[in-house]
């Protein structure tokens, strides 16, 4: 495989954003995701290859280590930051249609709930997997999900909740989304949830981690 792409994968996995970034210490002074993505484009590597062979494997590798408890939230967020940096350079190709996004994913933390670390990780990972992500933030009211859906009727929706008290709020969001957009797939997640709860409130999919969400979304796209 191309050397630039291989290096890029490593940068994503280890959260090396750019040459300036002091993290990880073992790669201090070396170029990062920023420079390598530019180099790859300059070398004529197709944006879709950069995404699929460079970024996605990097995110998968760090995601696996996170699920196994080998790295923690800070490292996972660094990987996501490195990936966002790479995506900045790929954005023009998405916009021009040269690289097709796999779809659009709207995500937000349900109203009443302000926890966003998990939601951010899911948003960044799904974006890195080639989806356009619209992050509505925290404490997101049902109307806000519906208004956004009106603009992007074919998208999938992700809702996060970390509080037992706000998990219940998801039910009304799912119900109203499904009433207005019966074909829209709704994914839910957050530490207190499980598949049983997801089924009960009429959501389509529960995942305990971002990787599960990506696998489900990619599958949808293949249908």
């Amino acid at each position, binding site marked *: 495989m191309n050397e630039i792409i291989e290096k890029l994968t490593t940068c994503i996995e280890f959260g090396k954003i750019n040459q300036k970034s002091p993290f990880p210490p073992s790669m201090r002074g070396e170029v990062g995701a920023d420079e390598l993505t530019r180099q790859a484009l300059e070398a004529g590597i197709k944006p879709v290859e950069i995404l699929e062979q460079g970024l996605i494997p990097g995110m998968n590798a760090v995601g696996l280590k996170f699920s196994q408890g080998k790295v923690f*939230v*800070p490292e996972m967020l660094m990987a996501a930051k490195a990936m966002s940096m790479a995506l900045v350079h790929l954005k023009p190709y998405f916009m021009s249609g040269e690289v097709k996004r796999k779809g659009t994913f709207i995500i937000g933390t349900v109203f009443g709930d302000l926890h966003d670390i998990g939601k951010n990780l899911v948003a960044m990972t799904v974006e890195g997997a080639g989806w356009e992500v619209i992050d509505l933030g925290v404490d997101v009211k049902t109307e806000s999900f519906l208004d956004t859906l009106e603009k992007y009727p074919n998208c999938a929706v992700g809702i996060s909740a970390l509080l*037992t008290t706000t998990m219940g709020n998801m039910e009304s969001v799912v119900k109203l989304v499904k009433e207005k957009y019966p074909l829209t797939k709704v994914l839910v997640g957050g530490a207190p949830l499980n598949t049983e709860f997801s089924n009960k409130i009429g959501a389509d999919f529960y995942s305990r981690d971002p990787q599960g969400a990506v696998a489900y979304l990619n599958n949808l796209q293949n249908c």
Partner: protein
Amino acid sequence: MTEWKNSILAHPEKIAVPVMTYPGLQLIGKSVMDMVTIGEVQYHCVKALSAKYPAIGATTLIMDLSVEAEAFGSLINFSENEIPTVSKRLIDSFEQVVNLKIPAIGDGRTKSHLTAARLAADNNTALQVFGGIIGPYSLAGRLYDITEMMTAILIEPEGAHDLLNICTSFLKEYALAFKKAGCNGIVIAEPAAGLLADYQCEEFSSRYVKQIVDFVQDDNFMVVLHNCGNTVSLVESMLGTGAAGFHFGNAVDMCEILPQVPSNRLVFGNLDPAGVIKNGSPEIIKVKTKELLTRTSQYNNFVISSGCDIPPGTKIENIDAFFEAIAEYNKG
């Protein structure tokens, strides 16, 4: 404090120290808003709870994770029946740390919490009264944004330390104010450190918590460090703070924690405050309480508690069930 601790260690009979203020609201007919803003209301809540439950081993005052950030100048969202929250970050670069003014004790709502502490201590609502403060890393996260603070420790560690130093300077004084108000100790809530690796927790949380412990802890004033994350691998770092007690959330199995803690330090934990105590039936609460006591019975330094603050709206019959279960367990 030492006396209280020694009596716990010497008696196999279990006492209970739930982190509990909000359920008192129903007993005195007040709202969350009253509780978080009026010291007297908070005091009347804990007083009503200890009158109803004489078995409470220690009064714990509110675990309010916004009061310190508010004192620094953060904007806070209040609502009648929900716990207040910080609405947005106060600073977005570490260069701004130099502009932060360390709040005076009494600024914002710290005054109301200290009033509650003084009243509870003066009137001996329980054998021991514990104030509550946020931990340094979690406070830094409130001021700088918690997601940003997670990566700042890797890319801008010096800046993160600058902010942590300011936070700790204030928290030391705030902790001391609880001591001066007559409390027997404080619970330091450091939830955000539960998301870190052990060496990160050590450098960016425990080291600063230790400064607070060194500043206020003595034979008459105990520091209890609360961390509700997945702390199994963080225990060693937590122990290094020198705190006399440790309080764990329900993310961990107490049986994986207790063997790691020396028998002369108290360990509090960890019934799920939301899933079990608030949303469970009285029967389930009884089963879970007895189960936890039975599983931990060999540890005299274990004190049964909720894994975190018992949420507003928890039914009184659920609290009844918790105390009944302990009484039944103690009878044998």
